[in-house]
């Protein structure tokens, strides 16, 4: 029975195409008397709450109750690590922060009720940018640091590249907004349906807010309509409000954010500011790097510290840095609390090192791909935090194969010829690598659990700690379970994720969902097959799996098992900045070709070729989808999705009309995706490799291809631009290189 490695359909395929696959808000009709919640929103980015008067709201038809800090029986704080997120703040810390919630029979009545609450504020000065935070000394963390080697090369190198790079954040825009429905069962305990990547933490936070033991709270996640990191922590507050509403009123409560509320209230990918100085030899080898990273963490810590750690870990991307000092600090600003987003701080740092290498290439008049290749890790090298780069030879293998299959060298010549013939439209082609560390950077999260139940008729239920958000985890788990038990997939049903089936789970994040939960499922299945083996041997060869199960039952052999897995051999000492934080690295590379229009700054993505190391793919359709989708999401982050805040700290881009999302036109016109062959990853479930996050950073090839195209408008000048590379930024970048080279001059000054 071979199911793993096969291109099987999605586990919920029929549900998705018939509309029968349910998401949290689809369950609302099951709860008679369901109350709806709407927040009272503070109109300031920073203010003290002087008073709240809900008297008028209480007489609003349909309004049932108002939730304020006085209603919290436990600790009214949802901060996941540091308890720094009051549910009902005395001090408003970002524009539109909820200060109270209104519960009503309908969402409309709740909204009207919220508008009747009279809140008085004393506005306070707000910090809205990274630079303002640096100037004010406003930080959420101390400086985190990793260093090795002698930085004196910075002074003696043949070439020194210095500068700063500003990187914008990214809105998750999961199509299903944050949603929770809570109700009380007959024992008085509270159950919650939540669109959460981390049911155990949602359970923990609710228990904390209500001041009850965790066994009083059950959290279930059927599936999510996208999450991308945005429901790793940010689902907790919505779930806590729903649970508090039940606690107070006894009626089921739904908290479902509208799109505008979701974009105004929930955290995003961190904007970054990087300041750097790098020394290169005359042949383009990086000799030393000093890098200072600031992230905009928003008002509370959230996951900003481990995100910054991952930035420090990934400032090398695939390159050996002999001497490096990288320091990172999370700025506290009066904005939404920025949070996990696919890549988790890795992408920002990797864009920076690619930017530095590209500038060095231009300064040394060497092709960027040559400089990149010269700096690759080789087998036996260690990272700046002391981890051996196992499988480093795959970087060069992938690079060379991809250059060949994409006809990179030949197409560079074609691009050069095209550019020689066109004055106002130029093309650029670039190849960039990805090395991405797999494991949670907090070691203790690297564990997974499963509960496999087999019934006497041979049908199977698999419970595990992971959540399904579209990444295909449930499809893979089903394949892994079927493969491990030696049964057809149809026999295996993957159950919704519930905290009363597998406790104390980790978030489904860090690309590790299959590695951790899949291995736990294998562990459980092995125990069961170990017990069933002798039973099967005692039966005729014609016995079916169901016959074996029935016989085992009658022999009083248990048909269920719990499975467990913890990632071995990982550790990290944050004080020393040394360790082995990652179980392994995922590798890949992409070649992208773009065409930039000097009149508009717009570009077309003509072609992208990707070669990704997914180990032995458990589910090729799922993995391919993750690569294609991750890449396009990265293209969105780097070229069109721009978050803007106004002077009052309000998110100005609060809908899809002002926040441009990748659509059909961002898909490369030619899009070739392939897996590295014969790439079994030892020690990982079925020899596979994580695939959720790494492909996002393949999109850096598009940013670098745009840089090549812009450079073609000038005569060897260094091209720099902030991220995202929107048409506006590219338009001005083209102007700068044209002016710099003296080919064109403009009398009109332009903003940088």
């Amino acid at each position, binding site marked *: 029975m071979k199911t793993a490695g096969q291109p099987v359909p*999605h586990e919920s395929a029929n549900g*998705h195409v*018939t509309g029968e696959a349910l998401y949290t808000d689809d369950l609302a009709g099951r709860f008679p008397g369901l109350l709806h919640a709407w927040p009272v929103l503070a109109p300031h980015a920073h203010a003290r709450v002087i008073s709240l008067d809900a008297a008028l709201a209480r007489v609003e038809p349909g309004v049932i109750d108002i939730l304020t800090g006085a209603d919290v029986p436990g600790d009214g704080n949802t901060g996941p690590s540091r308890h720094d997120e009051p549910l009902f703040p005395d001090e408003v810390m970002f524009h539109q922060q909820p200060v109270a919630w209104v519960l009503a029979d309908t969402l409309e009545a709740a909204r*009207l009720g919220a508008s009747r609450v009279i809140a008085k504020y004393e506005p306070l000065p707000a910090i809205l940018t990274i630079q303002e935070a640096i100037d004010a000394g406003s930080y959420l963390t101390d400086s985190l640091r990793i260093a090795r080697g002698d930085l004196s090369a910075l002074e003696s190198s043949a070439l020194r590249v210095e500068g700063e790079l500003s990187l914008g954040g990214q809105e998750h825009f999961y*199509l299903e907004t944050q949603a929770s429905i809570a109700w009380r069962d007959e024992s008085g305990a509270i159950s919650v349906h939540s669109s959460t990547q981390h049911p155990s933490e949602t359970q923990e936070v609710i228990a904390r807010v209500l001041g009850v033991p965790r066994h009083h709270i059950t959290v279930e996640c059927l599936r999510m309509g*996208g999450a991308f990191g945005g429901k790793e922590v940010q689902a907790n507050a919505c779930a806590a409000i729903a649970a508090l509403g039940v606690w107070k009123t006894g009626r089921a409560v739904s908290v479902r954010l509208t799109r505008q509320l979701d974009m105004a209230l929930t955290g995003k990918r961190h904007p970054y500011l990087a300041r750097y100085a790098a020394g290169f030899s005359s042949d383009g080898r990086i000799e030393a790097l000093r890098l200072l990273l600031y992230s905009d963490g928003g008002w509370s810590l959230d996951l900003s510290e481990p995100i910054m750690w991952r930035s420090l870990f990934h400032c090398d991307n695939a390159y050996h840095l002999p001497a490096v000092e990288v320091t990172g600090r999370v700025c506290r600003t009066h904005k939404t609390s920025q949070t996990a987003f696919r890549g988790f701080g890795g992408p920002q740092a990797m864009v920076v090192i690619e930017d530095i290498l590209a500038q060095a290439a231009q300064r040394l008049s060497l092709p960027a791909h040559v400089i990149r290749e010269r700096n690759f890790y080789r087998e036996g090298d260690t990272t700046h935090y002391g981890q051996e780069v196992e499988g480093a030879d795959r970087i060069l293998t992938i690079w060379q194969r991809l250059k060949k299959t994409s006809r990179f060298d030949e197409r560079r010549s074609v691009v050069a010829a095209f550019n020689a013939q066109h004055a106002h439209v130029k093309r650029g082609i670039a190849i960039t690598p990805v090395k991405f560390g797999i494991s949670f950077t907090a070691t203790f999260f690297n564990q997974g659990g499963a509960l496999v139940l087999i019934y006497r008729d041979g049908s199977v239920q698999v419970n595990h700690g992971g959540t399904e958000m579209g990444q295909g985890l449930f499809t893979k788990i089903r394949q892994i379970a079927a493969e491990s038990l030696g049964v057809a997939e149809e026999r295996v049903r993957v159950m919704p994720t519930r905290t009363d089936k597998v406790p104390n789970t980790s978030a489904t994040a860090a690309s590790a969902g299959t590695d951790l939960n899949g291995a736990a499922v294998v562990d459980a299945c092995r125990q069961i097959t170990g017990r069933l083996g002798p039973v099967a041997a005692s039966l005729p060869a014609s016995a079916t799996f169901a016959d074996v199960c029935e016989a085992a039952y009658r022999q009083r052999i248990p048909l269920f098992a719990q499975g467990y897995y913890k990632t071995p051999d990982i550790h990290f000492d944050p004080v020393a900045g040394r360790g082995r934080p990652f179980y392994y690295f995922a590798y890949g590379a992409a070649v992208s070709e773009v065409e930039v229009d000097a009149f508009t700054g717009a570009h077309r993505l003509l072609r992208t070729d990707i070669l990704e190391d997914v180990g032995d793919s458990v589910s090729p359709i799922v993995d391919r989808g993750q690569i*294609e989708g991750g890449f396009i999401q990265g293209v969105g982050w780097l070229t069109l999705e721009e978050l803007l805040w106004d002077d009052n700290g309000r998110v100005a881009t609060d809908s*899809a009309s002002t926040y441009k*999302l990748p659509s059909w036109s961002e898909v490369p016109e030619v899009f070739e995706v392939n897996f590295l062959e014969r790439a079994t990853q030892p020690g990982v479930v079925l020899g596979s490799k994580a695939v959720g996050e790494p492909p996002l950073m393949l999109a850096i090839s598009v940013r670098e291809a745009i840089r090549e195209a812009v450079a073609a408008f000038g005569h060897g000048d260094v091209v720099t631009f902030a991220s995202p590379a929107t048409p506006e930024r590219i338009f001005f970048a083209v102007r700068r290189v044209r002016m710099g080279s003296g080919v064109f001059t403009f009398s009109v000054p332009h903003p940088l």
Partner: protein
Amino acid sequence: MANDDREKSERSVSRRAFLKGGAIATGALSAALIPAVGAEAQLPDAVELDPRHSTVALKVNGVAYRKEIPNRTTLLQFLREDLKLTGTKMGCDRMQCGACTVIVNGRNVYSCTTLAVEAAGGEVLTIEGLAKDDVLHPIQQAFVEHSGYQCGFCTSGQIMSTKVFLDRMPNPTEDQARLALSGNLCRCAAYKKILESVMAASRLTRA
């Protein structure tokens, strides 16, 4: 605006109370079956009683419904909350993402910004109405075979847009398909698989 809303809300409550009094039996939540044709002519009695409410009669997936609703009820709310047809999703609520796409009288519309009363007298087709007797529609079959989704939240909208597109253009090019589906976002960016599904669906529906 706030005052207007409040007035409306109070009125709607009194309206409901009035209805409870028994002046009109609306059949509560269970929709009464009536012929869809000529439904508009039967509306005025309700409108006279409260201009902020209307009785809409329309067909959804071949089944006729008649229900008294606030005028401002969107078709999406009507489908999801009144009829409990939750296969149609709310993504952006501002006709930008396409997750709420349904077919009204043969045209694909954003149900989040279409009022239910605008569809009165019409025929609405949602994702729940595509499969017949548990046999998937060829478009659904193609999406299954080509995995034209990841999280699935945009899928019903993608499929409904595809339905209208292929009804009008049974033998399209890939470029035509991209253009026709440009009103439907997929945040997972499963576009390549969606395109494969649409092209496969065109072959299946022609077969």
